[in-house]
């Protein structure tokens, strides 16, 4: 295990239960923020930092794309919408380490040639908005920085939806091209970056890519996760690459006895518990296993829970959260949700199961955004991991979970 320089991690410093880190504490702990945008981009590229909003796109490359188009009039949109119900890490970063988040946004602005920063924070994340607002007041800024409250809808955090809302007050995804880095807020090249990614970018610019990569054995660096379904749920900062079994164990549960674990969020994948025990929890390692890191959600499904019911709830939610712009998403998710609900209630049939499989296979790439794709991934994994249970439900033969506990 690499030797860590104490106190430099995002959630180091002021104990989390004591609330937001003040400007003085932040500056004392981390030192000044570098000002060179070019060096920052190079450092972030070298660090291999991947975006933490869900897509996992290399952060350095994204900054470079916007910088190439910036002309000094680009916009930085810090994405703190966090519409994923299982995720709380963006809120935690904004509430507890607001200066780290703002530093990242300011640094990004310098790097991409932006003259404006928009902090897009979920309307329901009251503590986060207050903390960021207080932090802004504390430090002042040469750049115009404004907070925009994101609607509390699942797709409101999607890149084009965020830009659409800031421009027109409509938080629905738009058809791309053009993508935000080409034409975004006010028609200008816009960097849409998750707040956690920005916070880590600020740290990497200070301490260097080697520091970041050195925090873990395989160089994946640090990251925030939200873990639930365990005795001690909440947000953690982990060394990426830690085996999933260990992560779950550290939060007061045993993955060995769980039924399955949901990885990445509602747009992530189910994983059979036994397959997750030694799985290094890092974006690239997960991708190699066909799993998305997404927004770093780890949701453990206990031994008494029913995977079909859990999946049914999730797909019902995703169907309700469709932006209602594309027929295949609206009709497809609705049909799958209704049919899965029937199966979950033991009112379905083998034909229903076949229909779910067929419709799921038709979701990917059929919408303007990746909402149906995320649902498809979740469903495919559910059919694989809970295949036996789906079959049982379809045949009306009950469920392998204990009925009394099936929520």
């Amino acid at each position, binding site marked *: 295990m690499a030797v860590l320089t104490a106190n430099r991690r995002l959630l180091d410093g002021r104990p989390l239960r004591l609330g937001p880190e003040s400007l003085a504490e932040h500056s004392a702990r981390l030192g000044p923020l570098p000002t060179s945008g070019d060096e920052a981009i190079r450092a972030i590229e070298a660090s291999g930092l991947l975006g933490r909003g869900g897509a996992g796109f290399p952060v350095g490359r994204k900054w470079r794309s916007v910088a190439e188009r910036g002309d000094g009039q680009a916009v930085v949109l810090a994405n703190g919408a966090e519409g994923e119900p299982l995720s709380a890490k963006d809120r935690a970063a904004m509430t507890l380490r607001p200066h780290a988040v703002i530093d990242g946004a300011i640094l990004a602005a310098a790097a991409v040639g932006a003259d404006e920063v928009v902090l897009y924070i979920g309307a329901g994340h009251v503590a986060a908005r207050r903390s960021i607002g207080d932090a802004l007041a504390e430090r002042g800024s040469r750049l115009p920085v404004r907070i925009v409250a994101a609607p509390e809808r699942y797709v409101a955090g999607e890149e084009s939806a965020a830009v659409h809302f800031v421009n027109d007050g409509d938080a629905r995804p738009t058809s791309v091209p053009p993508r935000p880095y080409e034409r975004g807020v006010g028609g200008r090249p816009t960097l849409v970056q998750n707040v956690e990614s920005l916070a880590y970018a600020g740290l990497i610019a200070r301490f260097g890519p080697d520091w970041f990569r050195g925090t873990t054995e395989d160089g994946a660096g640090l990251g925030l996760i939200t873990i639930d379904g365990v005795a001690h749920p909440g947000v953690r900062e982990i060394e990426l690459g830690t085996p999933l079994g260990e992560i779950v164990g550290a939060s007061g549960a045993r993955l060995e006895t769980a039924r399955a674990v949901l990885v990445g969020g509602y747009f992530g994948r189910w994983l059979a518990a036994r397959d997750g025990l030694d799985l290094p929890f890092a974006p690239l390692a997960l991708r190699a296993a066909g799993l998305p890191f997404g927004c770093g959600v780890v949701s453990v499904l206990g031994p008494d829970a029913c995977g079909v019911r859990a999946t049914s709830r999730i797909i019902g939610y995703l169907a309700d959260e469709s932006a209602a*712009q594309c*027929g*295949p998403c609206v*009709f497809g998710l609705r049909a799958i949700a209704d049919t899965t609900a029937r199966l979950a209630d033991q009112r379905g049939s083998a034909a229903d199961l076949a229909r779910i499989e067929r419709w799921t296979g038709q979701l990917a*790439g*059929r919408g*303007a955004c990746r909402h149906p794709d995320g649902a498809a991934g979740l469903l495919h994994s559910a059919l694989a991991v809970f295949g036996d249970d789906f079959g049982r439900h379809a045949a009306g033969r009950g469920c392998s979970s204990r009925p009394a506990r099936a929520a």
Partner: protein
Amino acid sequence: MGRRPELGRDAGLELTIDRIACDGFGLCAELLPELIELDDWGYPMIRGGAVPAVIPAELTGHARRAASACPVLAIRLARRPQGALVSRAVPERVRSGAGG
């Protein structure tokens, strides 16, 4: 004896669907059934799933007609990036001569 690779103005088109504009009229599937079929609700799916869909040279006319017929202009055709030839057959001598 093989034919030369297809070159020329229409040899490199690709098709995308504007999913927000699309309203399930289904004319595209009628006019370009080789590439487009409809789902249970009348919305288009590209066969084989690849997006953008590459238009074989012999279907270019049909693709243009499908794009023109769409009442909401949801079918978009664009030239493929330079250097991507749509090759249907390779001349004999190239096939036998080149290595891996």
